[in-house]
């Protein structure tokens, strides 16, 4: 039977608010997976905490809804242990840039082959409207009643600084493009991060209108291996460029771990050492 989006839907109905940008992301992901024809049982979806954390409940995959901020290292563990699996990871701006921000550079350094969907609505939605690491300056929220005084983080610039091997941005308003970018990210060998600008209808710090006004496709002539140019696009705060900022090939975590095994095994006449032989070395 041909895979359809339906095959990737779990029996659980989403609890997101009507009009939430996350619906578009969920649909796009399920479509991308069906088009790539990856069997649901060979996919692991890990999500953190927050509205985006519920993502894993709605996927008919091996899904893990873990703790706040730890989705990336959890997904990394699954991929490192089982390189044969397709591993997806989903989190929001609070999960990925706040509490879990410290894990991202290390996943990038290791270049673990997984796709991380970093959803950004610029607010803490599930806890009902507190400021997040990407809330714009001066914005009044429940925990910034006199206005946010911290500068918002620039996710794309950070990812570039970490030398993440695949960096893209898209918005919930661009489903068609999102499907294509997701497919490319999943096919990419290495750590691929897609920053999805996703409006929140209940706490509209990032509303549909804002997204519509700001998004602009990355110029067609952009060379995705040009890091400096990508950085320039990332820092242009008059626009939210969408598309692939940066893409390079380098060995993945799995490549490196497999190489360690191959090297160790080749020393021992292409045989894995048995436990018995290993213990004898400690006599």
């Amino acid at each position: 039977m041909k895979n359809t989006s339906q095959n990737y839907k779990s029996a659980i109905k989403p609890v997101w608010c009507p009009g939430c940008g996350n619906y578009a992301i969920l649909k796009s992901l399920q479509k991308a997976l069906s088009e790539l024809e990856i069997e649901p049982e060979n996919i692991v979806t890990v999500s953190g905490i927050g509205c985006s954390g519920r993502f894993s409940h709605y996927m008919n995959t091996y899904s893990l809804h873990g703790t706040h901020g730890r989705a990336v290292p959890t997904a990394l563990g699954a991929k490192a242990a089982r390189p044969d699996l397709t591993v997806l990871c989903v989190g929001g701006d609070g999960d990925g840039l706040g509490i879990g921000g410290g894990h991202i550079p290390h996943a990038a350094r290791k270049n673990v082959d997984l796709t991380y969907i970093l959803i950004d609505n610029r607010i803490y939605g599930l806890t009902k409207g507190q400021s997040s690491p990407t809330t714009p300056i001066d914005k009044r929220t429940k925990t910034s009643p006199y206005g946010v005084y911290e500068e918002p983080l620039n996710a794309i610039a950070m990812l570039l600084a970490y030398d993440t091997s695949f960096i893209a941005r898209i918005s919930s308003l661009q489903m068609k493009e999102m499907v294509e970018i997701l497919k490319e990210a999943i096919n990419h060998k290495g750590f691929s991060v897609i920053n999805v600008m996703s409006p929140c209808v209940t706490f509209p710090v990032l509303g549909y209108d804002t997204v519509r006004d700001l998004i602009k496709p990355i110029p067609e002539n952009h060379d995705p291996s040009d890091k400096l140019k990508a950085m320039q696009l990332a820092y242009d705060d008059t626009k939210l460029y969408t598309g692939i900022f940066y893409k390079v090939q380098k060995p993945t975590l799995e490549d490196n771990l497999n190489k360690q095994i191959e090297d160790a095994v080749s020393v021992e006449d292409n045989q894995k050492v048995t436990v018995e032989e290993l213990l004898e070395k400690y006599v």
Partner: protein
Amino acid sequence: MEKKEFKSDVDFTVRIGGEGGDGVISCGELFAKAAARTEFHVFTYITYPAEMRGGFSMIQIRVRDWTIYSMGSEVDYLVVFNQEAYDNTISDLKKGGMIIYDPDAVEVDESLDAVFFPVQLTKLANEATGYDLGKNVVALGMLGSLFNISKSVLQKLIKDRYGSKGTSVIEKNMSALEKGYVEGEKQSIEKKFHLKTENEKPTYMMLSGNEAVALGAIAAGCRFVAGYPITPATPIFETLTKLMPKVGGRAIQMEDEIASISALIGASFAGEKVITPTSGPGLQLMGEQLNLASMLELPMVIVDVQRGGPSTGLPTKTEQSDLKFAIYGTAGESPRCILAPTSVEDCFYQTIRAFNIAEKYQMPVILLTDQSIGYRKATVKIPDFSHIVEIFKDNVLRSSLIPSAERMEIVTRVIPEKEELEGYKRFKFTETGVSPVSVPGMEGGQYVATGLAHNEVGKADYSPKNHLEMTRKRFKKLKYLSKAFDQNPPEFYGSVDSEIGIIGWGSTEGAIREARYLAEEKGIMVRHLHPKEISPLPEKQIRHFLVGLKQIIVVEENYTGQFAHFIKAKFGVHPIELHKCEGSPISSREIMAVIEKVARITDEEHITEL
């Protein structure tokens, strides 16, 4: 029988002390390895200075013709490289013991009742190598001569250890070793003990407690480790990172302990047997994910090599103070199992057991060792590989076998049968609380594992009934585990008529056992219980142990008496608590002193009764 164990024909202790960078430890380790090739048991204890270089460090080696339970209280042979080492350790020298020292560096008190053996270690090293370095190898040669160790054994050990440093280093070490042997022969000193190697087929490995944990993990089928360096657990991680690729496994260093245990959750979810080594401060960081592992019912083994706390505390010293955190730490009530190995050999076998329990009961298992056991080296019996049973589907939860060199089982988590995948319920309510768990790649086994309260299929469910039922399900596993522990033969020693009972846990086993022997020599009968299962406790066994006791002493290396609190709460007894909180292991003498005091109290009670 046990009496005989205490009376040994061969039983001596060598201590080597010097400056941090003197090569004291390698000298002692090579000597210990040579001794381990005989039919004798060997046990070592090391203290390092916390600094990278400099400061006083020492290694103590005990050799015996029976199982060794502790490092011993007194020293028969003392080798000192400098004055500080002499000053720090001379009070532990046995009457009539031997002191080997460099007369150019150490001033000795000649009025002591001791055999003096001056050797110009630095001068001889200089003659052999052209450097001050190498005096440790000169000392090693001397010890070799003193104990009749075949020179070829030490030569091979040196080659194995320094082989990677090139031929010139080897040659220099060989001539330093030769100098030591020659110097040893010159002195006409009685050779009391002979460490000549007889049989060829090895029966023992020479391991540190930390190495024993690493090898135990591999023997248990673990092929995934994620960790973060922390003293004193780092050697487990280092050993595993080195060995994993050789057996087709994977080792990754993460950015912190939270990431390490997160990677474990991912890898265990993906079906692997997983481990992370850490110490107290790391375990503390792992709290949130330990909780998640318990909630998702994922097998994993966490090793806490305890060190002195709180906070950064005493990174290189020993303590048993993470017990309550290990049992109760984390938000909400999340079942996990705690095991505490009692010796280096036990580290190997309890690690295998930890994996078996984790896999069988689908919960995190914390292995509580400590610095003193982790850095101690001792002989470990190689398991008989023809007696290993592999169990892939064991939902019977019959009594869990305690792995030993003679017989052990390797357990892997129970997976759903084909028909169970129809409308698969990952968290299905069962008699024992254990539900078959699917692993990625298994068609139809897809499910969501969530840290939210969830129902049998894994869907979030906050209803009061479901919350109670699911909590009950997770704790049922602990109940069955406790029952399984109670099936094992009782683990206490000493006379059933004793009125004094002594309870310890973890690395204090040897010291308590020797204290019991000392007490028995003086006619004081003591019963000793040392559960390796700390949580859940084998309750029936403990109740059985407590029957007829007038006084109970609980021994532990912490300030507040954490295990005693636990025993008091569970069994309603009022033990006398013996705490040591100085960063060093408790000795049999210290325990014996308390036993004697308690015996006097019990005697007085008898008199009153009369």
